């Protein structure tokens, strides 16, 4: 997205406001509420089974009104997180259809890499949310959403240093910042004497991951021990 797209606000034939990006309508020009109802009907299984939902695209939140309505019926506790690449859309939505926005967690105008540095977002993803793409928004920002969905985390220590627990920050300073956790495990294996609690903690983690992990450590070939 080299150039910021032009945002226009138009009214549907039914009278609801609709965001239009570079001439592309993000909702039905005739009846966005009806459109949202039938859109959500196609995702009822996901909404029923998952109490965490990730929605790709905010638009003017007509689809989200419907999603929230169903989540309310299906679950006592739930969370709906929306990723919207264009911050102007959120601003406009706050003006033209703000009624349910407070019930959502909206991450707007953030780069994909920045999103994945957010501890709360990571925690949310760890709960394996159901993913629902708002078709018009997804198509307009297809590159953005594709990179969001195919993101691969940087496995180096340096990329995570700011998120390490305070009590372990000093401990990890002894390692090369380019090292991955797997490389740190390997280095620890050669250590004849374990001297700190953190050594034992990593020993436990190493054992668990060796028994369970299938992920290929993509940073291994780049990092220097």
């Amino acid at each position, binding site marked *: 997205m080299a150039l910021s797209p032009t945002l226009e606000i138009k009214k549907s034939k039914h009278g609801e406001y609709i965001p239009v990006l570079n001439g592309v309508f993000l909702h039905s020009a005739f009846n966005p509420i009806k459109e949202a109802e039938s859109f959500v009907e196609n995702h009822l299984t996901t909404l029923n089974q998952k109490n965490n939902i990730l929605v790709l695209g905010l638009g003017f939140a007509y689809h989200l009104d419907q999603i929230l309505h169903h989540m309310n019926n299906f679950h006592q506790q739930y969370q709906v997180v929306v990723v919207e690449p264009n911050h102007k859309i959120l601003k406009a939505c706050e003006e033209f259809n703000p009624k349910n926005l407070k019930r959502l967690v909206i991450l707007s105008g953030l780069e994909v890499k920045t999103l994945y540095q957010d501890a709360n977002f990571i925690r949310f993803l760890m709960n394996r949310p159901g993913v629902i793409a708002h078709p018009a928004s997804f198509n307009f920002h297809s590159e953005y959403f594709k990179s969001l969905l195919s993101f691969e985390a940087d496995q180096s220590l340096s990329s*995570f240093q700011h*998120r390490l627990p305070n009590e372990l920050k000093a401990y990890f300073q002894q390692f090369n910042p380019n090292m991955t956790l797997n490389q740190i495990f390997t280095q620890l294996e050669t250590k004849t004497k374990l001297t700190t609690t953190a050594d034992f903690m990593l020993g436990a983690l190493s054992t*668990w991951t060796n028994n*369970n992990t299938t992920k290929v450590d993509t940073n291994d070939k780049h990092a220097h021990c």
Partner: protein
Amino acid sequence: MTNTLIVNLEKNLDLNMLAATAQTYAIAKKTQVSLLVLDEVKTAQNATDMVEKIFTINLQEMVKCSKHRIFSNFEMVNELQKDLNVINQNNWDEVINLGEDEASLYLVRCLQTKLLKGKFYNDNRIIYSSNLMAQWRKQHSFLHQQICMNDGLEIASIIEEANAEAEVINTKRYALELASGQHVTPLSYECLVELVQGLTYIKNDKIDLIVREEERQTKLIMDLQERFPQNLSIVEASISQLKNVLKGYDLVICQSHYFKTLCDQNGVTSFTIYHDYQSLYQNCSLNPNSLSLYLNKADVPFIKGAELIQCINFAFIKGKVTANLDLETLELYRLNNKQILVPISKNYNVGLYLKMILEKGLYREVQYQTWLEYKTELTIISDRELATFIQDEKESLSLVVKNTLNAIRLLKNFEHTQGNVKELVTYIDRLMNERSKDSATNYLLDLFKHQMEHLDASSREDNLIKTEKALINLKNHLQTLTRILGDMAETINERRKAQFSGINI
């Protein structure tokens, strides 16, 4: 009161069994016991309220981080630290790791405690492990008893109290487990009818038929209800509710181990039916008032309710060895204060009884040199039976002694020359893997195997020294067993001498 944390991070852990062990430990040591287990174990097995608190490690969350490309592996560090912070908020007086998995050997070293027991890595990654650990996986109930026997006096006094309370009880409430499923051979309808009839006739009281929600047998229940409209109530409970449901009864007739364990945890007297000796030995009720009945699977269809009632009446008589219940096919046992399953019926499995005396006596001798207190348990065994048993044990023992001495001899050769590695490995392999059926030497070989499996592989010389130490230990234990068998044989001689002098011991 002190604060103890028992750790077991195995994925296939029996949480109820661990909680039962923890509860006994809490009583014996007068300590508050909490557990640390994997989150998935706690979720799957519906946590028990028999312990102070159950802490968890969320391994699945951590594995998720390590498996998915969108997460940095370092997320695992955050997740684990978060769990550890919660656990370390308590000031633990002692932490005991009963887990056999490698991760827990590391993890318990991250816990803040004054004393660490069980199994764990030292700073050089050498496993520290107490002998109790060798028993944990194979014989949970055995360990359950042994773990508290360090303080034999305390646990004995608890049992005394329980016995005194149980002297004569006017029974008011019975529960009968209506069991089904793969692992249970249920009592026949006719037997159940006779049982309910008999119990209500004697006590003129009501019986509750306890049904697990998922095992409802509608037709059987309806038939029984129709037959006993006044005296029989149906209590349907889910697994999570069962524990509380069973609390109120004076006697629960159990057809499954699960009910028996719940009764033990609640201190409720149970009458449990076993169909094989192995499970009777390993999973007998630990409540000194409870009764364990052995009934061959093939005999189940023929058992009569009247016979069961005859047995059940013993549950309300003070636990004293009487061995006078004359039943044709049934064997009835009760655990005494030395943790021996004492037969109450005339019919009993002599081999099982002797095996229990020898194994528990051997354990006590190895740990505390107090085997002699078990010798008195031999009084009900005839000379001939005892002699046969001793002979069998000696045969198994001689083979193990031969292998042990050969291994030691070969190992000694390494001090001077290269030695015959292949031959040494053969003997050690035999000691580790060959077992005689039902012999007490198996217990000693298990201890040896346990030591061998945890040799530190840092250097060959070190390994040889430790192997030698393990072999010498085994040799000493075998000598102890020989001495105990000698003592047993001496019992026969003493009886003969007494007979000749006209004194009946």
